[in-house]
């Protein structure tokens, strides 16, 4: 079986985000595999370890994305494809079309991706890709079990759990709680250096003419929140003051 994992390199979630003149500053920023995509990579490797599968990680991004792909290879993926572009594309329709082109060629039985990326946060790209390729998807999965070509998954639906049965081919997006991603081992890191990583460009895929469906017109940091008031007095007084302020000043109770 072939498994394709769609992944993206993102800012570490502990990083501050500073917008300068409409551009997000990247100086000194620590980049990681998007945490949700990391669950997807881990799940693919576990499926491979329980049976027989080839795991291909695919990403669309700038040159630095190689680090994230190499980490996935070090975790246990077999090979990687990077569609390289220094231009920071944000339009999900475009990104999805680019990835779909590669995934279509790979023709996997199973596609795994993150539920959303912690930077753009839209959660569109993978689901659009499933529709483009005409395959079913289940979003926000917290458990995956394969039995032949039948796939049992659990999906997080606003706190409730849906138990779903479907068939390959299918695209699943990984939700938190799916697994606990491993750290790459030292031999894994050494091996990853030699694993194949194919670089492609948007032109090579024949996608120069694809137009974007949305454009970013403005980017900014939200106004800094002023620290409020630390209530004084003993606990009983503080509680009383808080309730009073929530009712009379903030009017939220």
């Amino acid at each position, binding site marked *: 079986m072939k498994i394709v994992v769609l992944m993206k390199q993102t800012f570490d*979630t502990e990083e*501050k*985000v500073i*917008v300068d003149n409409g551009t997000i500053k990247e100086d000194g920023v620590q980049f990681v595999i998007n*945490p*949700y995509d990391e669950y997807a990579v881990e799940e693919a490797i576990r499926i491979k370890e329980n049976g027989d599968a080839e795991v291909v990680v695919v990403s669309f991004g700038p040159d630095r994305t190689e680090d994230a792909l190499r980490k996935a290879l070090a975790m246990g993926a077999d090979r990687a494809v990077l569609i390289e572009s220094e231009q920071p594309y944000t339009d999900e*329709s475009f990104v999805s079309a680019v990835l779909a082109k590669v995934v279509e060629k790979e023709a996997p039985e199973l596609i795994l991706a993150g539920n959303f990326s*912690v*930077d*753009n*946060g*839209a*959660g*569109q790209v993978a*689901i*659009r*890709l499933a529709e*483009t390729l005409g395959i*079913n*998807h*289940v979003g*926000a999965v917290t458990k995956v079990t394969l039995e032949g070509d039948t796939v049992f998954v659990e999906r*997080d*639906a*606003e706190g*409730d*759990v*849906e*138990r*779903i*049965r479907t068939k390959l081919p299918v695209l699943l997006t990984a*939700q*938190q*709680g799916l697994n606990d991603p491993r750290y790459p081992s030292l031999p894994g890191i050494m091996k990853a250096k030699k694993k194949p990583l194919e670089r492609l460009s948007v032109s090579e895929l024949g996608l120069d003419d694809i*137009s*974007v*469906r*949305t*454009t*970013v*017109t*403005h*980017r*900014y*940091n*939200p106004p800094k929140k002023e*620290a*409020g*008031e*630390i209530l004084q007095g003993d*606990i*009983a007084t*503080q*509680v009383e003051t*808080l*309730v009073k302020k*929530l009712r009379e000043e*903030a009017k*939220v*109770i």
Partner: protein
Amino acid sequence: MQGRALILGERKEGKLRQVTLEAIAAAKKVTDGEVIVLLVGDGVDAQTRDMLAKYGADRLLTIEHEALKQYTPDALMQALRMAVDHTQPEVIVFGHTAIGKDIAPRLAARLGAGLVSDVTEIVQKDGDVHFVRPIYAGKAFEERKVEGLPVMLTVRPNNIALLEESTGRSVVEETLSIEIQDVRSVIEEVVKKATSGVDLSEAKIVVSGGRGTKGEEGFKLLYELADVLGGAVGASRGACDAGYVDYALQIGQTGKVVTPDLYIAVGISGAIQHLAGMSASKVIVAINKDPEAPIFQVADYGIVGDMFEVLPPLIEAFKKIQSA
């Protein structure tokens, strides 16, 4: 714009969700055209019809079918495509909910349309409509413009103000019949885990706990407080990683982003990844033993103290108000 707007309406336990009314208000900011709400699955009761009319819907389109009573992408796509063919909308709005965010990208791909996800505000500039959305879980914001038609968006619950209630309006009703075919996902079981009826992302009040809750005992108090206030319970990554509660409750850059009217953070230090998920809440209360905790930097009101001493009298005080 003058074209029609189509909104995927959602109900929970038979009741219309507030986010559907917010989606109507959002559509009205984009177009002056007719606003059509689609409801699928069950028939529609008088209360739902009344709410839709009061808050700006012009037309109610119903598609009833057994296969639409539970969500699967395949079945809902068939209903949506039928509704789109029937109404030819220029604007399509969803709530950014478990269903909305899961189906909107599929429909957008099918229609070759631009979709702006998780919209919190809609602004007009130089005759164009710009959609404001958080990026990096609210550490920054961006504005987007959609090229071509239809314009599609999902709106984040609790952010777009409802239209003013107007009485004496009514909706034109229409029912379409559908054959649903080839549904590739089968829902075998739904395990209800959400403890209260209030969904975390839609809740007006969120009571959230961190490592300082020390586990089950602390969260018991949080649930009690949430119950009294009619709110939902959330948690920090620390509390989830420690196994105190399910990951479904996690608030932060990983996890959910919430923007309630009132956010009460209990025993949460306020790591940057957590702050991203809640700092846009309207009013923030922090209760923490450590006066240096970064959560106090974003809190409107802070109590420095042990939650086990603060929460019981606080719960009692709120109970008194509710019964008054």
